[in-house]
């Protein structure tokens, strides 16, 4: 599903070149739930933005669902992102002047689906996260947990092949975080491929596999991931 091989990402200034990722390889199979952990500044979010086609990489190869993304132009990358990837952000990133339904509708608009199909998908996604009654509410009228559920509904509405979650519970209290995590596990149980970046070892341990990044490199893609996770914890 997601395969990066010897991938590097360098940020260059006139005097210095800094590698956010180097010789980075990872292979996430379809239907896997992978937790990506690592200290601050290790390159977790850079990995996620490259995986989500939000950022270009400097060298190496990246195949998303069998498509080699190197050399794709902005339009092709945007189309691929829209069709294959669902994002869940730590800060929810809902658009404040759109209500819940319209927020979920955003990726469907860019896919140019018909009105009836969009409506059906929005309702289905809302039902999936248990917020059918909140469709006309605005983000500011919802709790943090509800906002994150809306963000998950937005990610689900496009029926993506891959869900990328960046600290999805980072802005939530324990109870809300538990609810969101259970929802992600439920989605994984239904066959979704999920890559979740997290600082939280307790969340990481609930993933099927854990990938640890230090200084832009994968430290271990262990066949027995729990030991790596425990060591990290």
């Amino acid at each position: 599903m997601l395969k990066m091989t010897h991938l590097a990402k360098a940020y260059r200034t006139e005097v210095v070149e800094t590698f956010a990722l180097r010789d980075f390889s990872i292979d996430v199979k379809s239907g896997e739930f992978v937790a990506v952990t690592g200290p601050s500044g290790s390159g977790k979010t850079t990995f996620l933005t490259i995986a989500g086609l939000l950022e270009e990489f400097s060298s190496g190869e990246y195949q998303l669902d069998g498509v080699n993304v190197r050399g794709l132009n902005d339009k092709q990358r945007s189309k691929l992102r829209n069709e294959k990837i669902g994002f869940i952000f730590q800060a929810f990133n809902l658009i404040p002047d759109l209500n819940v339904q319209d927020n979920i509708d955003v990726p469907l608009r860019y896919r140019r689906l018909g009105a009836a199909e969009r409506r059906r998908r929005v309702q289905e996604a809302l039902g999936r996260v248990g917020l059918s009654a909140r469709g006309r509410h605005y983000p500011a009228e919802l709790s943090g947990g509800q906002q994150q559920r809306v963000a998950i509904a937005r990610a689900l509405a496009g029926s993506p092949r891959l869900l990328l979650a960046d600290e999805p519970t980072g802005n939530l209290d324990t109870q809300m975080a538990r609810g969101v995590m259970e929802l992600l596990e439920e989605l994984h149980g239904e066959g979704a491929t999920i890559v979740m970046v997290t600082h939280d070892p307790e969340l990481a341990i609930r993933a099927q596999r854990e990938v640890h990044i230090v200084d832009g490199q994968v430290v271990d893609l262990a066949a027995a991931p729990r030991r790596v996770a425990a060591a990290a914890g």
Partner: protein
Amino acid sequence: MFSYYFTLAIRSLTRNIVLTVLMISAVGVGIGASMTTLTVFRAMAKDPIPGKSHQLFAVQIDNWGPQPGRANYKDNLQPQISYPDTQGFMNARAAYRQAAMYSTGFAVTPANADLHPFIVTGRATYSDFFPMFNVPFRFGGPWSPADDRDKSEVVVIGASLNDKLFGGANSVGKTVNLSDHNYRIVGVLDKWQPEPRFYDLNTNHFAESEMAFIPFTRAIESHVGNWGNNSCNSDTQEDGFEGHLRSECVWLQFWAELPTAADVQKYRVWLDNYASEQKRLGRFHWPNHTSVRDVREWLAYQHVVDDNVKILVLVSFSFLLVCLLNAMGLMLAKIMGRAADIGVRRALGADRGAIFTQCLIEAGVVGVAGGLLGLGLTSLGLLGLRSLLSESVGRLTDFSVGDVIIAVLLAVMATTVAGLYPTWRAAQVQPAWQLKAQ
């Protein structure tokens, strides 16, 4: 997607009302100022006789010779001509149509004793005047060339004079008393107001067209006086009406209709020959100096569009530019304030083109709103001008449907152009950076 982007634009604009009002005001004030001056300029500069302006020619000939230090025009030609030359030109009939003319006026004594005598403006001219200038008739028509020849006491009256004297009824065949002479009405004009009044620009460029037209020959016979400009070379003045006719004083206008370029060329040659002939006769003692100018050239030569108006248009459009730069700055601030939203949209599948289109439509909505505000301000500006300017110039400040369309289109185009940079910046938003910064 247009309706979606339009809805987003409305939502975005209503999110920050103050900023939106500022942007719309900046565009509206700029449009209002520029359209006010542009409306006046366009009215002044418009073609008064579309479709024919390139076939009608004002004719000039130098009958004074070089006038060092005294010439009003750079080319040392007078804008009017003398009576002897009008007769030379008319008798030659070198053009397809031609008419000498001068401005005059009459005291009208109504047959209805309830009405007091009143003054109307008039014009003495030839029968060709009417077909040459496409003058529309409500009743009857122009007098005939025979009437020119026979110095007939006939008249063509204007629609408002006909309304006043005859209640708007067909008055052809009736008599009207003009300055103690009875004239038989042969035609009643329909509404006719060439703007500017190109055929005689000597007094007011935008004067109303005359109310009574009589044959030139009759006017001369009856010693009907000139109400227009009269310029005399001090060497050539003579006393009395007959003396005035013989003099080299210039007080008449002369127009020729020359349908083709070949006709124009032939006429120029003929005019040059005429000047040579006058030289041979001992009347002129200087090199031939003549001119034929079509209507457009004539209006430019006579500076119908005031230089001050041109400067005002330039200033107002510079002001529009400043307003648009302000609007651009505000738009940039607004769009950059939404960089996070743009980043989210990019993450959800919007390509740069989609973001560009969305922001450009928002700029267009600001443009339409600014254009509508500008229309209101233009109406106010024109209303103000009407109260400041003379009636004849104030009449030019009418705002047509075409002007409305121009104002809105100008606003939309200008705002869209002003919005290009902020929009381009929006499309360059790096979603990864925005989302990392959250």
